[in-house]
């Protein structure tokens, strides 16, 4: 809860989604696209294996931004992201970020989600209001 000035890094987060996260996320979100839950189907369409939902990873980015601003869900006012790569279960995802604009309690973060050095989400910007 200290990233309040331009250039400050946020605490960020690291998470290794287990093998069943895409299944549980499919159930929670209603997105049952087989590329996320069926390894054989994913391979048939040329993917290395079942991939995580992009919006799941965006959910992690939203968590990192919200937590940094104190953890109340009202803190997160806006979030925009670009999806740029595939990510997989059982491998660590790291969300990092820094303050790019600050006006009192209104702060904008630039965030990135990476897995094994690949940018999965980039150019993410989050507008938060510190509580």
């Amino acid at each position, binding site marked *: 809860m200290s990233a309040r000035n331009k250039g400050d890094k946020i605490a960020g987060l690291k*998470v290794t989604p287990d093998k069943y996260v895409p299944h549980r996320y499919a159930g929670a979100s209603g997105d049952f696209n087989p590329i996320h839950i069926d390894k054989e189907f994913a391979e048939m369409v040329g993917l290395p294996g079942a991939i995580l939902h992009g919006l799941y990873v*965006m*959910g992690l980015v939203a*968590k990192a931004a919200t937590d940094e601003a104190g953890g*109340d869900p009202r803190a997160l006012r806006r*979030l925009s992201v670009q999806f740029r790569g595939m990510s997989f279960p059982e491998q660590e995802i790291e969300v990092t970020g820094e303050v790019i604009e600050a006006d009192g309690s209104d702060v904008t973060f630039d965030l990135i989600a990476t897995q094994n050095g690949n940018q999965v989400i980039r150019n993410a910007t989050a507008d938060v209001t510190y509580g």
Partner: protein
Amino acid sequence: MSLKTDAVGKSWPAHEYEVGREKIREYAQVIGLDNPVHFDEEAAKAAGYRGIVAPPMFVVVYSAGAMGPVLFDPEVGMNFAAMVHGGQEFEWGEPVISGDVISTTTTCKEIYAKAGKGFYVFETESKNQNGDLVCRATWTNIVRGVEE
């Protein structure tokens, strides 16, 4: 395949979704959220909410039924097999509370080709039962193999 742009400006009928507390808990658990306001009524009320509050990204749950049919609309004509989710923006308003009924409408904002890819941009607007805006979203889907 050249790009069909007939659907630009088209809006679809509102989709209604009633928010349930177990669905909020299920979503919050998968993401690994630990704030009790997503799980516990008393904690949510103590924090100033009417009841268990949905995480901001729960928008994907209540707007899925509004976006799903649009992606398969023949008038949009998207080649679903070659589609990837390119970008996403959410801007939140009033918090969404268990028991709220959220109504989401979708509009096709833009369809354009760039560098051999088709860009399909949709906007959804979600309001609660009181007519308050809870989220405005921009969904960008990219389809490979499109002529300019």
